[in-house]
């Protein structure tokens, strides 16, 4: 299926257009109904970028088969199975609708899909907004130099982040899990673990410092 994609242009597109031409074409080995027999996460980013360019439903099915169980499990952490199924479907439809905006040089498919799922979850369960910046905003301050991440492929950095997450001490990993999956504010985490709020904050800072370390020396913030 080929659909003319006419979506708002933005700064992402300048980088988006030439990039795919440099990338290898993804093999179209369709995965049958077996959930676990899915492609690896690495070629998911290529697949998703290709979905954005080609609007190919069969390719998107592979993305769906890989991410749907994960997104539903994410949604089920904070809601009922029924609403988790509904929110998972909403997320995957949004992934399809926005796929032309996905830029694999900016991050892995999992990063991008996580952000979409997170926003839908906030909207559904908390009835709050999640304010976000817009690169097309005239008040937006662009980076003076290309993002440092372009030197390290987004995929490599995703792998490095995953490795770093595995080496986090148990107490820091737990705080991250509670923040990312159980939708707990810092003070709710403090209460749940019976810790002072300052301890929760410092565990988050330590975990983040560890993640930053994997990407090499970066600007140190005062």
């Amino acid at each position: 299926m080929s659909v003319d994609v006419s979506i708002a242009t933005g700064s992402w597109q300048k980088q988006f257009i030439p990039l795919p031409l440099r990338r290898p074409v993804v093999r179209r080995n369709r995965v049958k109904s077996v959930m676990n027999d899915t492609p690896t996460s690495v070629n998911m980013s290529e697949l998703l970028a290709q979905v954005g360019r080609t609007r190919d439903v069969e390719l998107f099915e592979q993305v769906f088969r890989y991410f749907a169980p994960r997104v539903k499990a994410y949604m089920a952490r904070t809601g009922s199975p029924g609403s988790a199924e509904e929110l998972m479907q909403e997320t995957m439809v949004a992934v399809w609708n926005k796929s032309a905006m996905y830029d694999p040089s900016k991050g892995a498919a999992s990063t991008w899909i996580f952000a979409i799922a997170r926003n839908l979850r906030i909207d559904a369960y908390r009835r709050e907004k999640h304010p976000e910046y817009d690169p097309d905003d005239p008040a937006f301050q662009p980076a003076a130099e290309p993002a440092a991440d372009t030197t390290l492929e987004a995929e490599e950095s995703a792998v490095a982040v995953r490795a770093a997450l595995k080496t986090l001490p148990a107490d820091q990993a737990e705080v991250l899990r509670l923040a990312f999956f159980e939708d707990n504010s810092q003070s709710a985490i403090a209460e749940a673990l019976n810790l002072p709020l300052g301890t929760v904050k410092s565990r988050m800072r330590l975990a983040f410092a560890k993640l930053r370390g994997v990407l090499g020396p970066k600007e140190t913030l005062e």
Partner: protein
Amino acid sequence: MTPRHHIGDDLLLSYAAGSLAEGWSLAVATHLAMCPVCRERLALAEAAGGQLLETLDAKPEAAPEPGSWAAVRSRLGDAPALVRKQPQTAILPSPLRDYIGGDVDAIKWKALGKGAAQLRIRTGDGETQVRLLKIPAGKPVPEHSHRGRELTLVLCGAFDDGEERFARGDIEDADASVQHVPTATKDEDCICLAVTDAPLRFRSWIVRAVQPILGI
């Protein structure tokens, strides 16, 4: 110019996780629009979210229903055009304009006396107090401490707090232990976004007495 005072790691991580209350998130998103450095840090925090998502154990009861793909497939049509109208120029970044319904000239200030003014911004979180503050050039914000955290993000002008200067895009993150006197620089009125998780506690009993009346 890139801001020099940034969002703390814990706030950025909570924002990426989606577990930060709306009021704080508004200050974070507004800073992010003005700060390429923090956008890179955010990308890292969201990458952690993506990796956690990938390694999430799917329990059998949370497996997608058999008809999931068919249901989603039937909804895959042409992508809706996601055009977002943007003005030619703007002073306030878009996350904030969305709440105010316009730029600086659309702010309906309420006078606080001595040239200072504020505008309250409503959020759905029930735990933060969000407002825009206008401090006249060269004037201090009344000396105050807080029962909780206070984020102050400079949008126009600048203020000095002790030895430190905070200009457009800079964020000051103060906790209950800080007793501070932010003072607008002499050249220009200073407009800030201030987020607190509890009403400010002013030191002077006179200000304290009128605090409920002024609504600050």
